[in-house]
């Protein structure tokens, strides 16, 4: 059991050494090797890499001089596994376990960084620029991700060294619960899960009757949008920030029990959370009588079981109760009647990660950043056709162009940016025309898009918007829980129409039908899943109507994705008659004389594309 003074002592003792990783100028007592141990880098064997470093340190008898620190996601997943060495702030990219030896010999022992392995940023011009000058890190503002990738998430002392658990200490000893809520309201923090509801207001609604009724604080870590991994990275990289924030919420509304509902698909996040909860209980910052103030608060983990709808608040609570995760109508809102019929607040992981600092530094510190209505920052998971795949955090109001071109490093292979998909299956797309739109809640919804939880998938000219709409609708259809008719049957009918269009069998009437159905489903579905399911279709029809029309009228897929509409042809001038395509064609659809131009029989062609992949002369086209 630690006192507030104990925590301050830990911070005083370890703070300066940890601060070196954040630009602090203390003299380093050791060499620190930070290895990313997030899901992406772990998939690329960063655990083996760390084992190799540890072995090298042991063999050299330098275990007390070199510390190997596993961290959460450092952000630049495209270059993983990432290794950073302090002092010196030297970043290495794509480090395989075999590369440990050379880094050890030349850098750790020899003192000279291995220049071949250094992190470089590829630019669209093809010229690499050194990491120090890259905008990937320099243009980011990291609040929610402040500790991610920099501290050991499995060591509570490192979190404490970063002022960890000082915010709950401050709230408990210097503030009343109402003052905590007022700070949250003044800060302007809005829910980062997608809908953007003001967090302070949510807490206020649940704050009545403190001490007389059972209440709950829940954390939504059921990050289901395919292509979004912000919350996972925070749980993997800085789990204590979420735990601390939930205790603050518990104090504010008068709850003594919390639940974190996390996807079972995130095994590393679950592990780290379990470790963090155990350490927090050992230190007495979680449990009975925290800091001797009489405030009790504990947290249990609940694992999801693969149902997207459980990210919806009422469905999530139903699932924690041990039922089928079906939503129910609101009102009653969870603040009145939520988990186990008790007043409950539910916030998203990223929302929580902002809270300890807001309490420590005050509402004004937070609300001076961002835009008029959207304060603070937003974390985006960049994916798809973008060079710097990874996790970035920017102030609200940053333009899409800035995020994609400068921070994201642009679209690879010289292709043209076509659109960015945000908000997953509930969101829409931002076309190139709106490349300079400042991204905040209001601006994005004004163009029929949404902030969403932060997945940002970049699409280029090779992506077909009808196919993307079909992809998301297919997702919704399989994830619809089936409780209400508009969602269960309506989305299925929409998908059938889209399939018709992508097979070239659509009519212009189908477009009207799609729009009509979409409006009906949005207006009449029970929960957020159904109400937002038509968005990807509506947004793509709105911005890319010509593509739909090309599929319907010209029976043509402009991006060359929809298989049924493709045809392969051989350019007779370029064909050398090498017969490679004919020999590889699984359908026997290609004929021609040796050293003579070949032709494809479109009747027999199954459009597999093997011929085009194999042609050495670039003579085969698809259109």
């Amino acid at each position, binding site marked *: 059991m630690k006192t507030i003074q104990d925590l301050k002592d830990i911070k005083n003792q370890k703070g300066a050494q940890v601060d070196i990783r954040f630009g602090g100028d203390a003299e380093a007592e050791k060499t620190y090797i930070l290895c990313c141990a997030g899901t992406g880098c772990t998939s690329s064997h960063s655990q083996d890499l760390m084992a190799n470093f540890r072995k090298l340190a042991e063999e050299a008898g330098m275990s007390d001089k070199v510390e190997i620190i596993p961290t959460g996601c450092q952000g630049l997943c495209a270059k993983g596994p990432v290794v950073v060495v302090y002092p010196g702030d030297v970043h290495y990219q794509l480090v395989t376990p075999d590369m440990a030896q050379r880094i050890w010999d030349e850098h750790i022992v020899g003192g000279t960084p291995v220049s071949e392995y250094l992190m470089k940023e590829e630019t669209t011009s093809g010229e690499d620029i050194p990491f120090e000058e890259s905008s990937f890190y320099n243009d980011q503002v990291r609040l929610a991700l402040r500790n991610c990738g920099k501290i050991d998430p499995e060591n509570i002392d490192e979190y404490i060294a970063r002022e960890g658990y000082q915010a709950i200490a401050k709230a408990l000893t210097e503030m009343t619960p109402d003052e905590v809520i007022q700070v949250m309201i003044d800060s302007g923090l809005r829910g980062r899960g997608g809908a953007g509801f003001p967090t302070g207001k949510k807490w206020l609604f649940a704050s009545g009757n403190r001490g007389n009724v059972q209440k709950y604080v829940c954390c939504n870590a059921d990050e289901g949008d395919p292509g979004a991994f912000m919350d996972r990275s925070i749980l993997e990289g800085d789990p204590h920030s979420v735990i601390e924030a939930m205790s603050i919420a518990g104090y504010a509304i008068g709850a003594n029990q919390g639940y974190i509902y996390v996807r079972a698909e995130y095994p590393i996040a679950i592990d780290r959370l379990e470790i963090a909860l155990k350490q927090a209980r050992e230190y007495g910052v979680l449990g009975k009588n925290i800091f001797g103030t009489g405030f009790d608060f504990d947290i249990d983990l609940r*694992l999801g079981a693969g149902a997207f709808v459980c990210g919806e608040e009422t469905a999530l609570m139903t699932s924690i109760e041990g039922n089928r995760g079906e939503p129910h109508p609101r009102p009653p809102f969870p603040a009145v009647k939520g988990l186990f019929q008790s007043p409950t607040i539910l916030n998203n992981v990223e929302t929580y990660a902002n809270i300890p600092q807001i309490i420590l530094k005050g509402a004004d510190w937070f609300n001076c950043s961002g835009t008029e209505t959207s304060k603070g920052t937003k974390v985006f998971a960049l994916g798809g056709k973008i060079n710097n795949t990874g996790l970035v955090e920017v102030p609200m109001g940053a333009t899409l162009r800035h995020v994609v071109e400068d921070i994201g490093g642009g679209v690879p292979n010289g292709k043209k940016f076509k659109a960015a998909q945000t908000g997953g299956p509930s969101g829409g797309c931002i076309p190139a025309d709106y490349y300079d739109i400042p991204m905040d809640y209001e601006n994005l919804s004004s163009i029929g898009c949404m902030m969403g939880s932060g997945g940002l998938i970049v699409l280029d000219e090779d992506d077909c918007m009808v196919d993307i709409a079909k992809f998301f609708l297919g997702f919704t259809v399989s994830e619809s829980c089936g409780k209400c008719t508009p969602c269960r049957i309506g989305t299925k009918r929409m998908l059938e129409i889209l399939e018709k269009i992508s097979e070239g069998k659509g009519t212009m009437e189908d477009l009207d039908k799609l729009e009509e159905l979409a409006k009906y489903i949005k207006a009449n579905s029970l929960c957020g899943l159904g109400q937002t399911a038509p968005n990807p279709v509506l947004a793509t029809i709105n911005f890319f109507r010509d593509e739909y029309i090309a599929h319907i009228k010209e029976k043509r897929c402009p991006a060359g994705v929809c298989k049924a509409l493709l045809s392969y042809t051989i350019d007779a001038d370029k064909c050398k008659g090498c017969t490679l395509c004919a020999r590889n064609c699984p359908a026997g659809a290609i004929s021609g004389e040796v050293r003579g131009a070949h032709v494809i029989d479109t009747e027999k062609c199954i459009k597999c594309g093997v011929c085009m992949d194999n042609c050495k002369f670039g003579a085969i086209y698809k259109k």
Partner: protein
Amino acid sequence: MKVSNVPFQGTAEQEAKLIELINEHKGQKGCLMPILQGAQNIYGYLPYEVQKIISDNTGIPMEKIYGVVTFYAQFTTSPKGKCEISVCLGTACYVKGSAAILEKVEEVLGIKEGECTDDGAFSIESCRCVGACGLAPVMIVGGEVYGKITPDDVPGILAKYR
């Protein structure tokens, strides 16, 4: 009720483990999900027989247990292959061509997504985002993650597990 064709082969040891798990959670609010998750870890799947043991020992009616089991994608009532293959169809992987990877896996093994080969060696599933978007497209074979793959890589990867 959907009953698997594969005969149930639970052991007494597994059952003892399950009873222990049930006793640990019984009576807690919302205990059914953790029990089902633990049971699936013990048996690998949740056939009728396992659901019955849970019902008998918790007093939770069979129809509720069955309802919960069939609601969540992660619970399965039929056994999986010795080597589970999972192809990510999350957005980031999808736009980088993971649908073609899945097709190739299906072609090589001669089974469809959601099926198991006759010898019980392989089963194929698609999944929604494992979070390794930086490695897209991604396929997981027997717990090992393979990233940035092309359909041509598939036969070679699968051959390692035969």
